[in-house]
């Protein structure tokens, strides 16, 4: 079995577990970033714009991951 074929045959359960771990790490890092931006950012308006960009981009990427994994699980 090649590496790629081995990857394809990974159980969805492992992938959902991996996604969960990534989500936990993401929430922790995001909380740290929010704390820094709110506590040390002098220009509130700019920080708000950066926060929006950060979360919109993150939500889009997480949504793609969840949708792709859902279809992969159902296939």
């Amino acid at each position, binding site marked *: 079995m*090649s590496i*790629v*074929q081995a*990857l*394809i045959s*990974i159980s969805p359960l492992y*992938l959902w577990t*991996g*996604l969960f771990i*990534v989500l936990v790490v*993401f929430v922790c*890092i*995001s909380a*740290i*970033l929010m704390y*820094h*931006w709110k*506590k*040390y*950012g*002098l220009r509130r308006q700019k920080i708000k714009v*950066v926060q929006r960009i*950060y979360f919109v*981009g*993150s939500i889009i*990427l*997480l949504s*793609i*991951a969840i949708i*792709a*994994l859902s*279809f*992969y699980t159902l*296939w």
Partner: protein
Amino acid sequence: MVALDIDEKIIYEVRKHWFGIAVIIAGLAVIALIPPIFFVVIQTTGTVMLVDGWLLFLFVYSLWLLVLWVFFFLEWTDYYFDVWHVTNKRLVDVEQKGIFSREITSFYYDRIQDITIEIHGIIPTLLEFGDIHIQTAGESREIILKGASRPYMAKEIIMKEVEKKSGTIQRVQVVE
């Protein structure tokens, strides 16, 4: 947060030049391209991929991009929060060291002994960025902002404030 006095105003902020963050963006863009290239190479070399292999790739790749996305904002935080606040009373040096460590030093203008600007290389000269060194009196410590944007303008503004407070600056050296 930097605590300012009631009558204290920020006149100017000396920040790192955007070139530093642009280099990081370019590096991350290259890293972001690795998985699709790997995927295409595998397909073109004849390795059998199932239809749901695309879904698996999409899943892994979106998480890969998320990691790079978060890493960029960590780097941006390091870049953006490394700043000198030039106020009408003092100079506040905020040095961000990673995400968990920061150092805030402030000193009044009459303690500034000399300002040195170092600009090395073609790109820093063309884009006008370099290192600013400020030596303060009373302690051997020197504060440095590496890759500062518009160092000459920053120097002029700081010098004006120094001159307002103490008359003249003792020594200004420009190294190119």
